[in-house]
């Protein structure tokens, strides 16, 4: 097992009359335990093209695809938009449902439920808007299904 800690701090000195100062941490555990941590992860830095690699057609991509081994297990997704232009953003969707937009510098951290139902689906999808987006993402999970090699 591993111990992975996720901490968020939200702060502002001028949003409200008094300071906003919130900080909390959680440990990323497997289902059905309060002591066994998630022990697998992957992390990438990617360029998300605004179109299909020059074809001129805007395209949405699977950032994290469904996988049988992820089913009914806790997974956590971190995504950061590393662009620096204020107008650049990426749209993050859970299959067909647009969750929201990450503008340059924004990040998100969510639990994610894999769903293999073809109609419901659950892939975390991404689409760059305005320009190619440089993103970093990480998936903390409890098992993933590897793709079988075509020549195996």
């Amino acid at each position, binding site marked *: 097992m591993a111990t992975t800690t*996720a901490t968020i701090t939200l702060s502002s000195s*001028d949003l409200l009359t008094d300071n906003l100062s919130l900080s909390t941490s959680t440990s990323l555990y497997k289902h059905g335990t309060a002591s066994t941590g*998630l022990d697998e992860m992957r992390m990438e830095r990617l360029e998300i093209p605004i179109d299909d690699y020059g074809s001129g057609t805007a395209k949405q991509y699977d950032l994290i695809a469904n996988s049988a081994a992820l089913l009914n297990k*806790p997974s*956590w*997704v971190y995504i950061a938009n590393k662009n620096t232009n204020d107008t650049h953003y990426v749209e993050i969707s859970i299959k067909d449902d647009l969750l*929201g937009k990450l503008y340059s510098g924004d990040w998100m951290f969510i639990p994610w439920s894999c769903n293999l139902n073809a109609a419901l689906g659950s892939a975390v999808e991404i689409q760059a808007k305005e320009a190619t987006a440089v993103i970093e993402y990480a998936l903390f999970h409890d098992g993933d299904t590897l793709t079988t090699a075509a020549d195996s």
Partner: protein
Amino acid sequence: MATINATITLSSSDMMDNAVSITNTSTLTKAGNDTGLSETSGLARKKTSSGANTILLDTDSGIGSDATAGGANKVYIKNLNSRGDGTKYVTILLEDTEIGRLYGGDWLFMPWNATSSGKDIEFTASDTTETTLEYILFFE
């Protein structure tokens, strides 16, 4: 305008051979410019003992309806219950689409499109144990 900073730290000293340490700070701005978000629900708390679907942020009423559809809105949610045996959780949904599960003590931070076509943020507790969530909506 206001300056709101959101910082995340993801760390593990024993998941891999080398330590994992991810830190990122975002200053929450409006869509497409560097003007800071200046509106918020404040820190709010919601309790339920129902295992049924409950709307946390409604695009058609309350503070959720004040958020600009398509804006750079952000949502923080924390499950305040204790983790217990790790089998109880709250499912967070975008209307009828499951996003993921917050076990006791877990939190999330995500953008919210707040589309008026009913993309509310909802939650469902895994059983009828009283569940308490804390949340903040930052919006434009």
